[in-house]
């Protein structure tokens, strides 16, 4: 097991493309840690963001095999140091009266928002880096966590570099 790599893939937005990309990973025994996919501003194309682990030789092979797929237009390996990353987590917590103020403090400390309140439960939304989501997960563990859902990671390179879809 190596370091986690975030791979951003620009693909044509057609049925079956996600399957092709995922089959590549599962067919060769590469693990997908997380995955997101959605259309770009131009709905003809979609961005798939996959987090996977593997040594550099395995990652190089993955990138080459991805490039070989017909609907794949560009593959970018976004090394942790050069990328802007973001994830969303939703947590539904069972809230006893005496716990409410503690939970509000956690929400503040982790830059989260409470997006739903009932007499029994609070639902918290956190947007941030992987570290921030992990921090939230640790902090709420002692409380009655009913549901915990994470989105996959989305990522983009820092600075002036970008994946150009205008000249396609």
């Amino acid at each position, binding site marked *: 097991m190596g370091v986690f790599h975030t791979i951003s893939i620009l*693909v*044509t937005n057609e*049925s*079956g493309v996600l*399957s*092709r990309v995922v*089959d*590549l990973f599962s*067919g060769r025994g590469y693990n997908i840690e997380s995955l997101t996919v959605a259309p770009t501003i131009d709905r003809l194309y979609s961005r798939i963001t996959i987090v996977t682990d593997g040594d550099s030789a395995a990652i*190089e*092979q993955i990138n*080459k*095999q991805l*490039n*070989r*797929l*017909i*609907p*794949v*237009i560009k593959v970018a390996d976004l090394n942790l140091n050069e990328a802007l990353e973001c994830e969303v987590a939703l947590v539904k917590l069972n809230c006893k009266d005496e716990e409410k103020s503690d939970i509000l403090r956690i929400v503040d400390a982790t830059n989260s928002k409470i997006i739903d309140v009932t007499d029994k439960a609070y639902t918290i939304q956190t947007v941030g880096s992987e570290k921030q989501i992990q921090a939230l997960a640790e902090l709420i563990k002692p409380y009655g966590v009913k549901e915990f859902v994470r989105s996959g990671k989305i990522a983009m390179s820092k600075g002036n570099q970008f994946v150009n879809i205008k000249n*396609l």
Partner: protein
Amino acid sequence: MTKELYSGAEIILKSLVKEGVTEIFGYPGGQVIKIYDALYNQNEIKHYLVRHEQAAIHAAEGYSRATGKCGVALVTSGPGACNTITGIANAYYDGYPIVVLTGQVGLSQIGNDAFQEADIVGITRSCCKHNYLVKDIKDIPRVIKEAFHIATTGKPGPVVIDLPKDVQTAKSTFEYPESIKLVGYNPNYKGHPLQIAKAVKMLTEAHRPVIISGGGVLMSGAHEELQKLAQLIQAPVTHTLMGTGTYPDSLESSLGMLGMHGNYWANYAVVHADVILALGTRFNDRITGCLKRFARDSHVIHVDIDPCSISKNVKVDIPIVGDCKNVLLGMIEYFEKKQPNIYKDDKDKWFSQIDEWKQKRAIPPFTGDKLSAITVIQKLYELTKKYSPIVCTEVGQHQMWAAQLFQFNEPRKLITSGGLGTMGFGFPAAMGACAGKPEQLVLNIAGDGSIQMNIQELATCVDYGFKVINCIINNGYLGMVRQWQEKLFNKHYSETKISAPDFVKVAEAYGAIGIRVQHEDEIEPAIIKAIEAKSPVFIDFVVENFEMVYPWVLAGEPLTKVLLSNDCAVK
């Protein structure tokens, strides 16, 4: 003026004609009956009816291998489509262009477990170059044009097009696109000039170079350029199984085949080379032996059109992504212009060393009562070489003997399943070769196990006059597996003894010719009779049960550990 309306089925056939298709291999069924109706009313495309869908695919691939064109197969949904999977995987691993049209249930029924429904697009996703499910009749021409483009360019491969019934029956006008745009697909043919420059520098300074020629040289049509370069730099040339015929075996500088059952001197040359130029090969385990020890002390230049092949198995010093022909032309230009010193004395020494190694031949087999398979195949070569036949093989010992004993001097003469090693490939592939090259003599060298896998295609051959000469090396065993059991499993011949019918009677039952050969003096008359026959032939060569294929590098061993016989192991 209203433009004429055609059915989806008619549009499919019109599109195939636009792509230059003149022959297809297929088998009808409920979900392609509309296409078959359209076939009935036209005479631009000739359809060959096989007896099993697997044979349709192998025939399309054999046709493609023999002619260089894209092979086409047409099958129905469900079981028909599923029967093509092996053939599709076979074309994928060896990199040959075929387009497979599969019928499918109507769009509204997909996913409902309908009668004869199979998710062929899902099933073949990992063993084809690309596949399509056509959902709109207006997409048909574009999809077919894209499919042929994808199948025949870059590293060629199979493309599957799934055609639902209602798309076939719908009606539309026919417009064939002038061009197509595949944003994500741009194979690199050129080869980076800086990399080529580095490579020629390395080749100039090589004292003991070796060129390994693979299937990519064949696909690129670069066999003449290869010969030229080898001459310019005075390098010996070895080839993989898929590269057979890319360098004339009859030349002094040819080392023949390398690898698990390749020549001793080819393997030793590769091990002791200081520079290896690998062209269009993917360094499969059959040719490298133990990867850790492969090319440990050599510099490697690797030319391949598929970037995935480069540094996948073998770390290379100079990778060049590009078409072999283009890259070779670039190298030739340099050597012709600059005429650098290529250390002729060292090269002479290198060739002398190789000549010494050439003394190490596989020990000839023992002479028993029965006919020797090796003798049979040797004689087959001698008696047919003047016809320059197309030689197909099945998979197993006979395949290795054919590759070792036949000398091939031009490409597209050996048609054999390399990457997938599919038994049952040879006979239908030979049919495809006959359809594509009707004036050529076509042989299929088979084992008694392999020939039984698609034996039913005798009917197809008789129907269309495909005069395939099947040379059945009948040793009563699944020979290659039996060989491994003899050497590595204490002769536990588990399930390798296999019975067979009377091949002569079977051939005659199908209306073909059957000949039995049991003694050496019967070989020549049998082959002469077969060549003059007007129908397909089965020659049943009853041979010794326990012959072994040598030389042999056991799986996982380095290329230096070449065994030449059962008794002596050579270091």
